[in-house]
């Protein structure tokens, strides 16, 4: 099963039209699409505008491949469930977002082993064929990386740093409760 999502805030018809073109010749593939505010309609896939969080997660779990815009929510969810994900960044020049920050996100995360970046319908079609024909062997289930652990430790240090200046912190709490 292929699960395609572009978030719920902005339309991204180019991605779904590309997927639809590919699906035309791959009728056996089950495709579920969360289209958000896109206008896209197709009889070749299960098109839903909004999917609630629990259903969203079970679809991600069930999917063989995810297709998504280059939104961090989509990318992080794919990483969490160790799924291959093909991302197509939104382009400001096509009115798909306010700016090209998704291009930057895609370029900066392209090194991740389970992530493929595509910029066109043709690239998406190739990437889908490849992802479905390749058995993913090297995808690690999400473990806490060194950089993630470092961020968590830094946040804990921040939370508990107050203990070093109890008098001032206590005063602030009192002031806040007036």
């Amino acid at each position, binding site marked *: 099963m292929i699960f395609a999502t572009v*978030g*719920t*805030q902005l339309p991204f018809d180019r991605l779904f039209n590309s997927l639809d073109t590919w699906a035309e010749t791959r009728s056996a593939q089950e495709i579920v699409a969360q289209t958000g505010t896109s206008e896209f309609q197709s009889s070749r896939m299960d098109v839903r505008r909004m999917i*609630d*969080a*629990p259903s969203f997660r079970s679809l991600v779990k069930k999917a063989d491949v995810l297709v998504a815009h280059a*939104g*961090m*929510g*989509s*990318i*992080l*969810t794919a*990483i969490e469930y160790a799924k291959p994900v093909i991302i197509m960044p939104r382009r400001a020049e096509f009115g798909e977002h306010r700016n090209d*920050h*998704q291009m*930057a*996100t895609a*370029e*900066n*995360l392209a090194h*991740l082993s389970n992530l493929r970046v595509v910029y066109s319908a043709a690239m998406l079609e190739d990437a889908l064929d490849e992802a479905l024909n390749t058995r993913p062997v090297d995808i690690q289930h999400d473990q*806490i*990386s*060194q*950089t*993630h*652990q*470092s*961020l*968590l*430790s*830094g*946040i*804990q240090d*921040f*939370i*508990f*740093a*107050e*203990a070093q200046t*109890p008098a001032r*912190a*206590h*005063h*602030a*709490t009192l*002031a*806040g*409760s007036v």
Partner: protein
Amino acid sequence: MQHTANAKKKRVLAVASGGGHWVQLLRLRPAFANCDVHFATVDAGAKADVSPSPFYTFKDANRDTKLSLILSTFQIAMIVLRVRPDVVISTGAAAGFLAIRIAKLIGARTMFVDSIANANELSLSAQLVAKHADQLVTQWPSVADKTQATYIGSVL
């Protein structure tokens, strides 16, 4: 008193708007172990992600939706006043800026973690919150080099 300070768990308010901001906030959860953590976001369905922790919602807004922004500000203020956190941590966006501004008024300590999507420059919310947050964090070393944000790691 030392022992009373230790007896009370740190109360943390973790705030984010929806989508990727919320997913990144969820990835910070291990840091909230041993804290009394309260969550706030825009999507009521996200309650299941953090149950049984206390959970609040507010109206989604950004700088382009002025009316929603006013309602959102009011709701976030009510949440901050109700929770009375010792610490506020946000992964953005506009909601994080608002929560930190309001939390500073009641003496909370605040940290803004800019989204990992901002790999080349700080988000507008991060730039606006920079002089108010006690700590501004970027998830990219190159951004830390050219801004006042610090790099201490990332959600990946």
